[in-house]
C-alpha cells in the first residue's frame, strides 16, 4: 500500500468528517453568528473598559437586560409568525404610566396592579392583532401608526397627570424587591425573565401553538392549507407582545418611578436590532428564544458601554443603526447561502478498500462467470408495477409487492394477471415477510416497520429506535427501513440502510462508504425497538437461517454477507460468510434445497473501487460536479447468486445486457420458480428453476405446513 494511501486510511479513520455536515444541518447553527459577535463584544469592551466585568456593573446591566428581554421575547414571537411590532416602545411607555398610576398613586396591591398593567399592554396588542391578523393590514404600517397614537396618548396623559402620579409612593416590600432585589445576586427582573424565557422556549419548540406560529411564519399559505387558524395565530402574537411590554414596564416603573416623556423612546429600534442581530429572520419562520437572548445581550452591552465610555447620545444611536444594518445584511446572506454551505459539506466520503474484484468474464472458471440464464424470463405486471423492491407469497399463492407510490400490491394466483392495491401505506414499501399468523410485515422506506393483517388493516410497529450516544444528528427516527426477517420467537430483525440519507438519496450513501446503516430488532412482546448492529455499510437483505438461531445480512457497499447469531450458544457473535462479491448484494432469501439466494443489485466497476480508496477525490467531485454526473456504483446490471451456509457460490444467474432486469434487488423462490424484483423496474420476473422442489414455499419453510 502506498504511503499516501496509508495516510488517507488513517486520516479518514480518525477524523469524523461527517460531523461538520451534521452540525451545519442543525437548527441551532444559526446561533453561532450572534455567539461569535458576543465574544467579540466581550473581548473589545473587556479590554477597553477597566471595570466592565465588575460585579456592580454586571448587576446593573443584568437588571436592564431583564426588562429588555421581556420585550425582545415578544418581538421574537411576533417576528417568527412573520410580523413586526414597532409599537413596543409606546406600549412600554403607556404601561409604565399605568403602573405608576395604579401601583404608586392608587396603591393597588401588586397582585391586582401587575395583571392590570399586563392587561392594558395586551389590549393595545389586541388592537394591533385585530388590525393585522383579522383585517389583513400591513404589520409595519399598522404598528408604526400605533406607535404614534399610543405615544401621543401617553404625552397627553403625562401633560395632565404627571405631577399627580409623581407624588405617589408604594411602600410595599414586594415593589421594592422588584426594583432593587436580588436572588443569589441575580437581579429580580432577570430571574423573572428567565422563567418567562424558558416558558416561551418550551411553547415555541414543544407546544402546538409554537409549531403553528412557526408554520405561519414559514409559509402562511401552506399553514392555512394545513388547517392552521392563521388569523388567530397572528393576532395572538401581538397580544403576547403587548402583554410582555406591560410586564417589562412594571419592573421599570418599580425601579425608576419615572413618568417622563422620554420613557421607551426609540426602544423599538433597540429591540429590533437585538433580535435581528440574534438571528431572528425578518422573513419569519426562523428563530428561537436563545437567539433573541443573545442578540439582546450584545445590544445591551454595546449600548451601555458606549454611554459609559462617554459617547454622545447621537453617536450611540449611530452605532446602533449601523449594527442593525449589519445584522440585516448578515441575516439575508446567511439565509441565502446556508443551504449551499450545507450541500457542499454534507456528503463526506471516507476511505474504503475492497479486496480485488473477482473475475466475471464469460468462459472463466470463476463461479461468477457471465451467462444468459435470465434471458427471456417471463414478466409479471409489465408496465403496471413501479418499483417492486421485494415480493412475497401468502398461503394461497397470491403475490405481494411494494410500489413507488406507497402501495402494497396484491397480484392474484394462479395466473398473476389480476392486480389490486392491498393496502396503502405511503413511503416506498421495500422488504416483506409473513409471520406465523399470516400478518404481512413490511419495511417502508421513509416511514418504518409496518404490519398488514390479512383483513388489510395497517399497523405501525416501529418508527424509531434508541438514539446512539455519540451521534450528532438525531438518529432515533428510522429513515430508510429496508429489509426484514422474522425469528421463530416472533422478533423482527430489520435493516436500516442509512441514517444519513433519505429514501430518494440512498445511492449517495455509496459515495461515503462509511458504515451509516444498522440492524434493529423489534420485539413484539413489548413493542420496543433496539439497535443490535450499528455502523454497517448499507445493510440490506436479511434472512433468518434454517436453524433459527442466526441470520445472514448483506452489506451492499461492503460487498459482503455476514452471519449474526441472535440466539443459541454463539449468541452475539458475527462471522463473514462471503467477503468479496463482484457486485452489491441486496436481499437474501431461502432456497428450497437448504441454501440461499442473494440478489446483486449492481456490479462493481474498477473505477468506482479505486474512487472508494480516494475519499478526497470523491469529496471534490461532489463539490464541483453536478449531481447527475457523479460517479456511482454501476446499478444498470445485476445478477442472482445462490450460496450455501459456508459461503460457497453454487450458481449465478445473469441477464446479459440487462434488458429485462437491469437491476435486481430481490428474489423469492416459490413452488419451483424464482421471482425477481427491482426497485427501478416495471415488472416482476419469473424464472423456472431447474430441479427445484415444485411444492416448496418459503411460508412453509418458516412456519411449517398448514395442518
Amino acid at each position, binding site marked *: 500500500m502506498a504511503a*499516501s494511501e496509508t495516510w488517507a486510511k488513517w486520516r479518514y479513520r480518525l477524523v469524523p468528517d461527517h460531523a461538520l455536515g451534521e452540525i451545519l444541518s442543525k437548527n441551532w447553527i444559526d446561533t453561532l453568528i450572534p455567539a461569535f459577535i458576543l465574544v467579540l463584544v466581550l473581548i473589545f469592551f473587556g479590554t477597553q473598559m477597566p471595570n466592565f466585568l465588575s460585579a456592580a456593573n454586571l448587576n446593573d446591566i443584568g437588571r436592564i437586560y431583564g426588562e429588555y428581554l421581556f420585550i425582545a421575547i415578544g418581538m421574537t414571537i411576533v417576528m417568527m409568525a412573520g410580523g413586526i411590532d414597532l409599537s413596543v416602545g409606546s406600549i412600554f411607555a403607556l404601561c409604565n404610566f399605568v403602573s405608576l398610576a395604579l401601583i404608586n398613586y392608587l396603591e393597588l396591591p401588586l397582585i391586582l396592579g401587575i395583571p392590570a398593567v399586563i392587561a392594558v399592554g395586551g389590549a393595545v396588542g389586541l388592537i394591533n392583532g385585530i388590525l393585522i391578523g383579522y383585517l389583513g393590514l400591513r404589520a409595519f404600517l399598522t404598528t408604526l401608526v400605533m406607535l404614534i397614537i399610543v405615544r401621543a396618548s401617553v404625552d397627553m396623559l403625562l401633560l395632565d397627570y404627571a405631577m399627580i402620579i409623581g407624588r405617589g409612593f408604594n411602600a410595599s416590600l414586594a415593589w421594592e424587591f422588584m426594583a432593587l432585589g436580588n436572588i443569589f445576586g441575580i437581579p429580580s427582573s432577570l430571574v423573572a425573565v428567565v422563567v418567562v424565557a424558558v416558558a416561551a422556549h418550551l411553547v415555541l419548540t414543544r407546544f402546538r401553538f409554537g409549531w403553528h406560529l412557526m408554520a405561519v411564519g414559514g409559509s402562511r399559505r401552506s399553514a392555512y392549507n394545513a388547517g392552521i387558524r392563521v388569523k388567530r395565530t397572528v393576532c395572538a402574537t401581538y397580544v403576547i407582545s403587548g402583554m410582555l411590554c406591560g410586564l417589562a414596564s412594571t419592573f421599570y416603573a418599580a425601579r425608576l418611578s419615572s413618568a417622563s416623556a422620554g420613557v421607551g423612546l426609540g426602544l423599538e429600534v433597540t429591540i429590533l436590532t437585538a433580535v435581528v442581530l440574534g438571528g431572528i429572520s425578518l422573513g419569519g419562520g426562523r428563530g428561537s428564544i436563545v437567539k433573541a437572548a443573545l442578540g439582546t445581550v450584545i445590544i445591551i452591552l454595546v449600548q451601555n458601554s458606549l454611554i459609559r465610555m462617554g459617547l454622545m447620545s447621537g453617536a450611540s444611536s449611530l452605532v446602533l443603526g449601523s449594527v442593525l444594518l449589519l445584522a440585516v445584511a448578515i441575516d439575508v446572506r446567511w439565509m441565502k447561502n446556508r443551504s449551499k454551505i450545507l450541500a457542499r459539506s454534507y456528503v463526506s466520503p471516507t476511505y474504503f478498500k475492497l479486496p480485488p474484484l473477482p473475475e*466475471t468474464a464469460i468462459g472463466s472458471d470463476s463461479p461468477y462467470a457471465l451467462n444468459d440464464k435470465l434471458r427471456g424470463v417471463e414478466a409479471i405486471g409489465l408496465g403496471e408495477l*413501479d418499483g417492486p423492491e421485494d415480493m412475497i407469497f401468502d398461503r394461497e399463492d397470491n403475490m405481494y409487492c411494494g410500489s413507488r407510490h406507497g402501495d402494497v400490491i396484491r397480484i392474484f394466483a394462479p395466473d398473476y394477471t389480476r392486480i389490486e392495491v392491498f393496502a396503502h401505506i405511503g413511503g416506498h414499501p421495500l422488504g416483506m415477510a409473513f409471520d406465523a399468523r399470516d400478518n404481512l410485515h413490511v419495511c417502508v422506506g421513509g416511514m418504518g416497520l409496518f404490519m398488514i393483517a390479512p383483513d388489510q388493516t395497517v399497523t405501525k410497529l416501529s418508527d424509531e429506535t434508541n438514539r446512539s450516544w455519540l451521534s450528532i444528528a438525531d438518529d432515533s427516527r428510522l429513515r430508510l427501513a429496508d429489509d426484514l426477517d422474522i425469528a421463530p420467537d416472533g422478533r423482527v430483525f430489520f435493516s436500516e440502510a442509512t441514517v444519513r440519507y433519505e429514501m430518494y438519496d440512498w*445511492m449517495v450513501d455509496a459515495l461515503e462508504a462509511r458504515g451509516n446503516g444498522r440492524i434493529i430488532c423489534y420485539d413484539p412482546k413489548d413493542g420496543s425497538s433496539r439497535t443490535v448492529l450499528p455502523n454497517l455499510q448499507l445493510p440490506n437483505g436479511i434472512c433468518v437461517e434454517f436453524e433459527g438461531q442466526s441470520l445472514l445480512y448483506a452489506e451492499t457497499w461492503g460487498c459482503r454477507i455476514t452471519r449474526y447469531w441472535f440466539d443459541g450458544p454463539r449468541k452475539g457473535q458475527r462471522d463473514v460468510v462471503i467477503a468479496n462479491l463482484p*457486485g452489491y448484494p441486496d436481499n437474501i432469501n431461502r432456497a428450497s434445497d437448504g441454501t440461499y439466494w442473494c440478489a446483486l443489485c*449492481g*456490479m*462493481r*466497476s*474498477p*473505477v*468506482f473501487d*479505486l*474512487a472508494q480508496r*480516494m475519499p478526497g*477525490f470523491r469529496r*471534490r*467531485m461532489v463539490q*464541483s*460536479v*453536478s*449531481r*447527475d*454526473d*457523479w*460517479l*456511482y*456504483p*454501476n*446499478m*444498470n*446490471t445485476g445478477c442472482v447468486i445462490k450460496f450455501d451456509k459456508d459461503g460457497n457460490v453454487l450458481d449465478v444467474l445473469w441477464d446479459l*445486457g*440487462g*434488458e*429485462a432486469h*437491469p*437491476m435486481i434487488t430481490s428474489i423469492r423462490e416459490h413452488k419451483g420458480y424464482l421471482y425477481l424484483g427491482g426497485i*427501478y*423496474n*416495471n415488472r416482476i420476473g419469473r424464472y423456472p428453476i431447474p430441479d427445484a422442489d415444485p411444492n416448496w414455499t418459503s411460508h412453509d419453510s418458516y412456519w411449517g405446513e398448514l395442518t
Partner: protein
Amino acid sequence: MIAFFQRKLDKIRGSGDAAVTVPSMDGALRPNQLVEEAEPICRTEQPDMICECGGEILFSTGNQVCALSDGRERYAFDTTVSALAAGSDGALAVGLANDGIRLIGGPHDGKDLAAMLGRTLNCPVALLFDGADTLFVANGSENFSPNDWKHDLMSRGQTGSVWRIDLAAGSAERLMGDLAWPFGLGLGADGLVITESWRHRVLHRTRDGGVKTPLWDLPGYPARISPASGGGWWLAVFAPRNPLIEFILREPGFRERMIEEIDPDYWAAPSLEASTTFLQPLQGGAQVHLGVVKPWAPSQSYGLVIRLDEMFRPVASQHSRADGKRHGITSVAEVDGQLLAASKGGNLVLRLMQDRGVVQT
C-alpha cells in the same frame, strides 16, 4: 505572477481553466436522432476513415483498407490503419500506427517518407494531399500510438504536431507543434484547417503561418473534418465532453492511479463505444429506470456530426444520443453526392441525409 494568482483564484472559484462545466448542446447543436435513424451501409469492425480514391470509395478498418461497394479488403497491413488520404491522381496515403506512412499508386508510389521526415511517425492520425506533390500529416502524439489515444488524453498530452512533406523534393517541414492531439486536417481557401481534439477546437493556419481559432469550446472532442459541397465543412465529433471527465482531467492523482491500475477499456474517460459492460463506470443520471435510459443521460460516448459554414460556424448537426449505439463517429465525407460517416464505436458505415438537422430559429 498575475497568471499564477489567476490560476489559484480559478481553482477556488471553479472558473476559467478549473471549470468542469461543458457547453450545452443548443442552437445549431440541438440534439436529434438523425445519426441513429440514418441508413446503415456497411457493418464492419471499427470503420475509421472514409475516402474516395480512383473512383472507388474506401474505408479503413483495423489493419485493412476495404472498398465500400463490396466490403472486401483492398490492402492489408501489419498494424492498424490510422489515417487515409487520396490524391487527385489516384495516389493513396496510408497512415499506420507506429509504422509511419505508406504511399500507394500515383507518381510517388512507394517512396520512403521516413527518410524525408528523418524519423518514423508513431501516430499519423490524419493525412491530406495538397496537389500531387504535397502531403500534410497530423501526428497525434509523440508518446502514444493512435490506439492509445485514451492514454494521451488522460495524461493531458500536448505533443502532437503537423508536418508538410514535399514529395517531389523529398523534404519535410514541421509546421506546428505542441498540439493536443491534432486529429483532422482540411484544406481551406486560405490555408490549413486542423482540429485539435483535447482542446475541443478547430484551428486555421493561414498560408503566411498565422494561426487563428475560428471554432472553440465544442461540447465534444472533434475528429476529422472534410469539405462540404456548396462551401463549409463537415466535422465529426467522436466523443462528448462530460463534467465528470472534465473533473477527472483536473485530478492528477486519480488519473495516475487509474492509468496504472485499470484496463483502459474500463476507465472513466471518453469512449468510442456505448457502454456494454458493468465494468465501465456509471454516472448517476445514466441509471436505467423502468427499463429506460434517458437520451440526455450523462454519457462517455456519443455520435455527432456538425455542419459548419465557411466561417466555421455550426449551422446544423446530427446526433446519436446516450440511449443510442452509433457512437464514436471519427470521420465524415461527402463523396459521389452522398454523405458517409464512419461510426467507429457502432461498427457501421452510415449514409446521412445532407440537408437535415438544421435548427429553425
